[in-house]
């Protein structure tokens, strides 16, 4: 054995000997609350920085991955988009190489088919979707729950592939001040302030103020294509949330938020004639009101009402085209819940959404008003639902949830959506789950495919039509909790999403005037079909105290027939075949030092046909497989965490992400062909300061 081998062996032995941390037993709370108004908030844990991060809780009826506060601290996690880097379930990518818009994929489908919830209220709908992930500061969050498959009918049936619920820091947190600041070597700077205040001795009134500012002060062009790698950007984000907890169990929550985000991308040269730039301004504000009232002393029956309003305005100037849009959005939900007899629980309700859109899409030399292709559009649906839940007497062995919902969709009519979830735990160490059902949503072709605005190709077909997309998702999950432990498990899941109707977008279309991007409903394509099969394996273990290991692999087979290629090659473009993620975390005794390491291997995507052979790339029709490495070290002091880390440590960058960057005014120009990292290695440092409430 040579000296290097001895050194490795000695280091490993010493490291193992050092792992004598006394592990604290953190049993995680149920924070998803997918099946109803949460009643556990006041007693909910706020897991502070400690071992662990992502995990699959045993108790959930639906296969749910929880990203804890600890998981959100493993990386820079400046915003929600970056919070999924150590998850294989959710893949995050850029919509284009210009705007910085991020989009997720769950079960191999675009994130628009995943319902986003903000503490169980639908969020990030419509215009807010393309940048919505950038508009949730990671440091505002307490945890994220990713539920796969069809979920409850209570919040509508827009969730086709799953639901992502965000739990923010609570008004009841005994933290009058939390401050976080971080800076990256590319000048990206984040600043967050959160203040949770309990306003009376009885604990009736409490509020949380959340503030966020981020921006970058420098732009770079590492790949020399003349375009900035990341747009110059500045965001201000404010929110205020209130909780009133009445003495009889009634709870009222309300809040408001405001956001303004401006970003400028495009060519490095100063704006002027012959220079391609993109200027985007997004403004968003809104408020919500939630109230829950027990109808009897045991709280076995209660009523809840949820009201939400949001306004979003987007002004986008992409030099060769312009997109201006606004959206008034309202959501209302009235629920009645009753535990009819022990083990049998029923929820009945009425809910609906109304979105009033004003969209104007104009082309070069055409004023948006003159070139308006769509006047105001209102998309409305109202539905009635019932959900029956049965739990076995011990509340863990068996559960069944049957949800039935009928919605009236404006312009379409009535649609019926059944959903069924089954969970069976034949032993303390094995949990089996199955679920299936229908999902429905209106398409928003331009917003759902935001990258089309960063191309030179004209849009043809149904790109301003809001068809009702219709999908069925079925799947199951088996999790073996080794030795009955909740932190050591092996899990497998499979889900299929099959579309009955979908807006099919084809970047390979050819029109009389050359290449174009076509939009067509799946039902208009002869023999058209669209489906995704997704398989995932998760392994998590704590081999020694303080050391957590998670290993996840996902394989996706996404198929969609398209107009250009018919059914001969139906592999859905720009959808990665697989992803594997390894995460290691070691926390020293009392978590005073925390070391995080994440490695991911990202599989190939089939490229669009027009990309094949461009500059000698993609000869086989697929993108290359690439690795990503992340590392972070956190040192904790009393009330202060200091961390330094690095992202994309292999410095892997997609080569030439913008096609025909030298001809931005040509029809072939295309910045939407993004499949890999746009930015190379990034080093960052940050600090988190927490002041706890004291006597």
């Amino acid at each position, binding site marked *: 054995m040579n000296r290097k081998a001895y050194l490795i062996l000695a280091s490993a032995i010493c490291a193992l000997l*050092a792992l004598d941390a006394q592990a604290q037993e953190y049993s995680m709370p149920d924070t998803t609350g997918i099946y109803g108004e949460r009643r556990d908030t006041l007693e909910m844990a706020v897991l502070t920085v400690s071992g662990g991060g992502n995990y699959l809780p045993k108790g959930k009826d639906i296969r749910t991955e929880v990203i804890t506060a600890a998981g959100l601290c493993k990386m820079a996690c400046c915003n929600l988009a970056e919070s999924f880097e150590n998850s294989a379930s959710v893949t995050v990518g850029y919509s284009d190489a210009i705007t910085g818009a991020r989009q997720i994929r769950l079960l191999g489908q675009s994130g628009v088919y995943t319902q986003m919830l903000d503490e169980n209220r639908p969020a990030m709908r419509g215009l807010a979707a393309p940048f919505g992930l950038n508009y949730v500061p990671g440091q505002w969050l307490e945890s994220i729950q990713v539920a796969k498959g069809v979920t409850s009918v209570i919040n509508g049936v827009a969730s086709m592939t799953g639901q992502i619920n965000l739990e923010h820091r609570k008004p009841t947190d005994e933290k009058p001040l939390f401050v976080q600041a971080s800076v990256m070597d590319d000048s990206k700077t984040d600043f967050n302030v959160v203040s949770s205040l309990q306003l009376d001795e009885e604990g009736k009134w409490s509020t949380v103020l959340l503030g966020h500012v981020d921006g970058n002060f420098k732009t770079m062009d590492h790949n020399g294509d003349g375009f900035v790698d990341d747009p110059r950007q500045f965001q201000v984000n404010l929110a205020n949330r209130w909780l009133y907890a009445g003495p009889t169990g009634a709870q009222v929550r309300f809040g408001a938020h405001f956001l303004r985000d401006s970003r400028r991308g495009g060519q490095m040269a100063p704006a002027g004639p012959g220079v391609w730039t993109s200027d985007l301004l997004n403004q968003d504000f809104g408020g919500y009101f939630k109230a829950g009232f027990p109808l009897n002393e045991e709280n076995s029956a209660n009523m809840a009402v949820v009201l939400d309003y949001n306004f979003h305005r987007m002004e986008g100037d992409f030099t060769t085209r312009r997109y201006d849009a606004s959206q008034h959005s309202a959501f209302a939900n009235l629920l009645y819940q009753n535990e009819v007899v022990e083990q049998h629980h029923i929820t009945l309700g009425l809910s609906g959404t109304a979105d009033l859109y004003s969209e104007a899409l104009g082309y070069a030399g055409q004023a948006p008003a003159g070139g308006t292709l769509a006047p105001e559009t209102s998309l409305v649906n109202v539905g009635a639902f019932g959900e029956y839940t049965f739990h076995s007497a011990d509340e863990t062995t068996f559960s069944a949830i049957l949800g039935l919902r009928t919605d009236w969709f404006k312009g379409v009519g009535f649609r019926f959506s059944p959903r069924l979830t089954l969970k069976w735990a034949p032993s303390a160490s094995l949990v089996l789950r199955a679920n299936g059902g229908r999902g429905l949503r209106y398409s928003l072709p331009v917003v759902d495919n935001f990258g089309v605005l960063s191309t030179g190709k004209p849009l043809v077909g149904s790109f301003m039509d809001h068809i009702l997309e219709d999908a069925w998702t079925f799947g199951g999950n088996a999790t073996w909790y080794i030795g009955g432990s909740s932190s050591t498990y092996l899990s497998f899941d499979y889900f299929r999403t099959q579309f009955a109707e979908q807006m099919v977008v084809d970047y390979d279309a050819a029109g009389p005037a050359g290449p174009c991007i076509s939009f067509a409903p799946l039902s208009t394509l002869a023999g058209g079909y669209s489906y995704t099969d997704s398989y995932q394996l998760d392994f998590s273990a704590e081999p020694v105290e303080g050391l957590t290991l998670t290993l996840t692999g996902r394989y996706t087979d996404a198929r969609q027939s398209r107009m250009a290629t018919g059914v001969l090659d139906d592999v859905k473009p720009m959808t990665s075949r697989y992803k594997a993620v390894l995460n290691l975390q070691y926390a*020293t005794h009392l978590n005073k030092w925390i070391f995080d390491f994440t490695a991911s291997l990202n599989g190939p995507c089939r490229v669009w046909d027009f990309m094949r052979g461009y500059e000698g790339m993609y000869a086989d029709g697929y993108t290359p497989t690439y690795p990503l490495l992340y590392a972070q070290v956190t040192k904790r002091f009393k009330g202060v965490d200091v961390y330094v880390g690095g992202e994309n440590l292999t410095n892997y960058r997609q080569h030439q992400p913008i096609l025909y960057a030298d001809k931005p005014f040509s029809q072939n120009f295309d910045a939407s062909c993004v499949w890999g990292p746009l930015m190379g290695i990034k080093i960052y440092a940050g600090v988190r300061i927490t002041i*706890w409430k004291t006597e």
Partner: protein
Amino acid sequence: MKKILFALGILSVALVTSAYRPGSNRRTVVYSSTVECKNCQNKVMDNIAFEKGVKDVAVDLTKQTVKIVFDDTKTDTLTLAKAIRKLGYGAKVIKYE
């Protein structure tokens, strides 16, 4: 590569030595407290762990106790009780060894 391995070795040795320092001055105290929720648990863990002389902390929500292992040359049970009370929870010694 050798430098990285050497640094890792040094770090590991440092961790070992910090974890296994002589324990002759170590005492264990258990307080009966009013901790009753996960938030309380986290608050105690996040603060008491960084008090001078504290080697270990465990909060038991079902028994409503806070167990602390500490170095009696650096702190004492009164100081620790005061630190717990400052967080808003009671602290009455029920066991000391």
